């Protein structure tokens, strides 16, 4: 290549890269941050716009659920744990973050059918923006939780341990992004996935300490808890929700024996989900 050939200026002919690895794809998505931002803005605007009260409806839902579930636990099942309502609310918002992210991710490709069929943009931006939007919603719900906490437990003072919420959020977000991409990739081809997911989530809701705490079952099950409790915590969402409660209400750092495997799981599922999604993404335009 001699310099004499560069007579005219302008962009140079470059090979089009069709496939890329996770690293290159993440760099590409980061370079298109304004796109991710625009997609998040769209999702949140659509979610909150249609009604007069907008965002308040979606923040009210966990409060109503909390009221019902606390009533049932306390008076029908006789659970006597201090500040049960606050613990249930914390469980509910972490659960809603989990559930909504997965359900929204599952059909994010199909919902953006026209875009995916017509124009190139980094496909992972779709599920990632779904998880990001739900993270923002989790943040808003967290403010509601804090307000309720101040109202219900006036002498509550958070300690530095509460800062653990941020790493917990990162772990949960990473896990949701990975699982979400896995679901987005498979649901686009097999629409049964979302039905299975909805049923699975219903079961998971009850075997995860959302409307009760791990302490509750330890007390209720007695001797059986000795062998059941460790197995029970294999559920990553159980560990995550219990950790939120621990750092916020018991002012202790999370139990690392439980949290570290969950963090490792989150990283693995993120990498696996991302890879599967990238592989599947070239078939999206033909499948939808």
């Amino acid at each position, binding site marked *: 290549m001699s310099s004499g050939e560069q007579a005219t200026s*302008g962009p*140079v*002919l*470059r090979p*089009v890269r069709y496939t890329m690895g996770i690293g290159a794809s993440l760099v590409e998505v980061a370079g298109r941050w304004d796109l991710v931002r625009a997609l998040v*803005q769209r999702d949140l605007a659509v979610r909150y716009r249609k009604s007069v009260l907008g965002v308040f409806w979606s923040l009210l839902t966990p409060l109503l659920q909390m009221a019902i579930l606390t009533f049932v636990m306390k008076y029908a099942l006789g659970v006597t744990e201090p500040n049960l309502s606050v613990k249930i609310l914390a469980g509910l918002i972490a659960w809603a973050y989990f559930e909504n992210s997965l359900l929204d991710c599952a059909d994010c490709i199909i919902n953006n059918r026209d875009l*995916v069929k*017509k124009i190139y943009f980094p496909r992972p931006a779709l599920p990632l923006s779904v998880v990001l939007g739900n993270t923002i919603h989790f943040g808003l719900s967290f403010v509601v939780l804090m307000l309720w906490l101040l109202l219900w437990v006036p002498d509550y003072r958070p300690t530095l341990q509460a800062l653990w919420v941020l790493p917990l959020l990162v772990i949960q977000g990473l896990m949701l992004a990975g699982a979400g991409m896995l679901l987005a990739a498979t649901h686009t081809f097999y*629409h049964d996935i979302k039905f299975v997911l909805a049923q699975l989530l219903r079961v998971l809701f009850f075997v995860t300490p959302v409307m009760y705490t791990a302490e509750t079952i330890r007390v209720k099950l007695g001797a059986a808890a000795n062998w059941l409790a460790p197995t029970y915590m294999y559920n990553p969402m159980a560990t995550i929700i219990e950790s939120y409660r621990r750092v916020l209400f018991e002012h202790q750092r999370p139990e690392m024996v439980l949290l570290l495997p969950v963090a490792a799981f989150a990283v693995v599922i993120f990498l696996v989900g991302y890879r599967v999604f990238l592989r599947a993404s070239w078939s999206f335009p033909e499948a939808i």
Partner: protein
Amino acid sequence: MVSCQTMAFTDTNLAIRTVGLTKRYRYIHDRPARVKDLVITALRRRLPRARMLKALDGLNLKVRRGESVGFIGPNGSGKSTLMALLSRVLRPTSGEVYVAGRVGVLLEVGAAFHPDLTGEENARLTAAIFGMSRSEIEARLEDIIAFAELEEYRQMPVRTYSSGMLLRLGFAAATHLDPDILLVDEALAVGDEHFQRRCYDWMEEHAARGQTLGLVSHDLAQIRRICQRVVWLEHGRIVQDGPAEEVVGAYLEAEERHDQGEEARP
């Protein structure tokens, strides 16, 4: 001694180059559509051999920078597949594609639009999807709205827009990306004459600025008007490639012959 391939890379006059570009589709019915079908085929231990449809067959194409090239051919000749491969929506089965600079695609009427968002929000979203940065969008938003002639309606949700208004907004958002290579796939079939004229004007300006245009259309008059060069595709292969008048003329002749052949049959 420089190899042939390196020469191709350094050819500064080219905007697009494809080498042996091939795209095969699997027939959609051959893919198990539901988990049930997947399980059944797996249990039978006999996956049906995928039948493939060749949409593009070893296409070699060179487009110089600043050229306006029209692509014609019957339905299923591979025109739209070619556009999708150039714009990275699809991945080739084999072969390579080289492009110089940013590739823009003119979408059909607001494919990126969300009905509940306002015109302005949709313009922002579309521009972001096309690859504009936030500062670029803010700098050009007024131009986009003005070009679409939607000043009074910018704060209204686009579900209240007429199809003409949607088209104008989509076109305005797409064209303000200012791509080095613009691909248009029959997006102008709709829209009134006034708007079509403005689209032509814009495309001519685009070409005059030394940017490259690829236009797929069944409207031969449109092709003749905008493109100097026409590529006639059939069954994923190039039948003829040359000056617009010549190729369009040959294509019309062939079509006429084909039609007469049909009529002659009892």
